[in-house]
């Protein structure tokens, strides 16, 4: 589904990611785990075609992120940051519609899709109200709807729970699980192992731009003979520092 081949990204002379090599399978929830500054956001931005790798290449759904960026964008939905912004003066529906139209969806299909998603996320009550006075939970649902309005095969979520309270974070987790049920591939980044543990099929641990390890959680436990994954994570990072 997604494949990174020797992906290096440099900002001026600072290396944000260094020769990343891995594949993400269709339909899996894939975690990118790393401390602040590890290179998670940079990696996701490259997947989303917003940054070009300095060297190496990436394909998403078989399309090259540099040469076929428009094709890639059709197939991805993104949510960067926990407090995802909306346009306050537009209604929930108008917010979602705007993005749908920019994905070239036709009007009827778009209406239909909004109705469907609104029902699933239980937003019918306020779908035609302006977003300004919504609660955080309501806003979050609108953001979810916006992310999947064009029915993308791949979701890229960058620390989607950062800055959120527990209830909102749980809502995000439920959303991620439902996306997997719908057959989407989800890539999300996090800096806490406990969150990754709850959701992920496989996890890539990155540190200072380098891939330290990549496996299922069970395999990691066995490989390092350590039941406590949080401890495993900190140990691996310490190892990376040496």
């Amino acid at each position, binding site marked *: 589904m997604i494949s990174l081949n020797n992906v290096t990204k440099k900002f001026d002379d600072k290396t944000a990611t260094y020769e990343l090599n891995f594949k993400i399978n269709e339909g899996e929830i894939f975690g990118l785990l790393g401390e602040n500054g590890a290179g998670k956001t940079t990696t996701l*931005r490259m997947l*989303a*075609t*917003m*940054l*070009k790798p300095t060297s190496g290449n990436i394909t998403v759904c078989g399309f090259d992120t540099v040469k076929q960026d*428009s094709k890639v*964008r*059709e197939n*991805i*939905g*993104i*949510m*960067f*940051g926990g*407090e*995802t*912004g*909306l*346009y306050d*003066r*537009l209604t929930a529906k*108008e917010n979602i519609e*705007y*993005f749908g*139209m*920019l*994905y*070239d969806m036709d009007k009827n299909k778009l209406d239909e899709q909004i109705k469907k998603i609104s029902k699933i996320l239980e937003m019918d009550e306020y779908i035609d109200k302006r977003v300004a006075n919504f609660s955080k939970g309501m806003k979050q649902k609108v953001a979810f709807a*916006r*992310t999947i309005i064009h029915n993308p095969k791949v979701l890229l979520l960058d620390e989607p729970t950062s800055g959120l309270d527990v209830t909102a974070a749980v809502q995000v987790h439920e959303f991620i699980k439902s996306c997997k049920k719908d057959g989407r591939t989800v890539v999300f980044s996090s800096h806490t192992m406990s969150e990754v543990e709850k959701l992920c099929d496989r996890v890539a641990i990155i540190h200072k731009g380098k891939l330290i390890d990549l496996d299922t959680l069970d395999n990691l436990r066995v490989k390092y003979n350590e039941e406590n994954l949080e401890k495993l994570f900190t140990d691996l990072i310490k190892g990376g520092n040496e």
Partner: protein
Amino acid sequence: MNLKHVMIVLKKELKDSFRDKKSVLTNILLPLILIPLMYYFMNMGIKSMTSQAEEDLTIGVISNDINTANEFVKQNIIGEDNINIVNVTQSEVNQKLENGDISCALLFSDDFFEKLNNDENVEVELKYNSLKNSSSLGMQRLNSKIMALNQILATSKLQSMNISPDILNLITPTTNDISKELNDGKTSNDMLTMIIPMYLVIVIVTAGIPLAVDIIAGERERNTFEALFSTKADRLSILVGKYLSILIFSVIAVIMSFIGLILGIVLNPEMFSTAGADMSLTTMLQALNMPIGAMLLILLASITLAAAFAGIQIAISTMAKTVKEAQTYLSYLTFPAMILGFSTMFMGAMDINRYMSFIPVFNTIAAIKMVLSGIIDYYFLTITVVVNVLFIVVVLIFIVNLFKKEKTIIK
């Protein structure tokens, strides 16, 4: 670039901003009422000045022969005018001037009347307080009355000596303003041509600012920029859509200011007759009734300048790291417009040189000023529009390149 995406972005930004009460207020309502309000207050100011000048005046008279002095002032200086006299002493005069009990005072020297009877030159002191408007006006009134008295005394003296009083006016200057002849009889309207071009340019330069802050820096701060750039719309389409929305907003503000300008004239017609001969409604309308070509050219100059500044606003909002930073930097845009505006303010429409048409912003202010004054120079107007268009091209090349850079979206 995809025109459909451009239109989607444009429509959304316009809908969004028209729902913002604050921006509707500053871009549509304010320009509409600002000029009429300006006129209204200027009108009130002029009215109160003229009425003050005609109001009752109380003056103090100081003399050791108070009865003679009072009689002299009443008979020879005041005449029929509504001026009251109070007698004051040397010691209390300053205090009374300061309190406003009297507007000014006449101080007669001890030998004043004796000398006057002997046809000797005499002096009378006119005390007033220049910090008080009413005192200054009163002094001027008294002063001119004394001058008139001089004329009368001299005339009767000459007559008693059998000399024609015409000798007092051997040379009489008459003034003749040639600007009317030079401009096919159209007069310049000083007040208007001074303020309005500058005001219009400030509107052109600043009207798009709130929108520019909101839809670039604001979009980034809201975390929606990345989502927007991950849609099928390419960067150029998004940029152009946003650019056009700022431009349309600025143009609306400019048109509203023009309507406000006409409203101001129509609502305060008396202002144009009281403030001087050159300021009648008809002359103003005459000035507005300029050749259609010239009118279109200054409109075009205004719109092209607005187009260039919409681009500059986008560039600044893009380069700023935060909304606050964008607001701060964008507010500086007012300064060049003000400085260039002030520099033309006291320049007569005829002092404007052709080479000035090559200076952006300045050329547009000057063009509006000239046309409002009835000076139609198609060479100047055309160069102004061409220079503004070149200005737009430079700005657009700059922002298109800016948007190609990765760092633009990612801070």
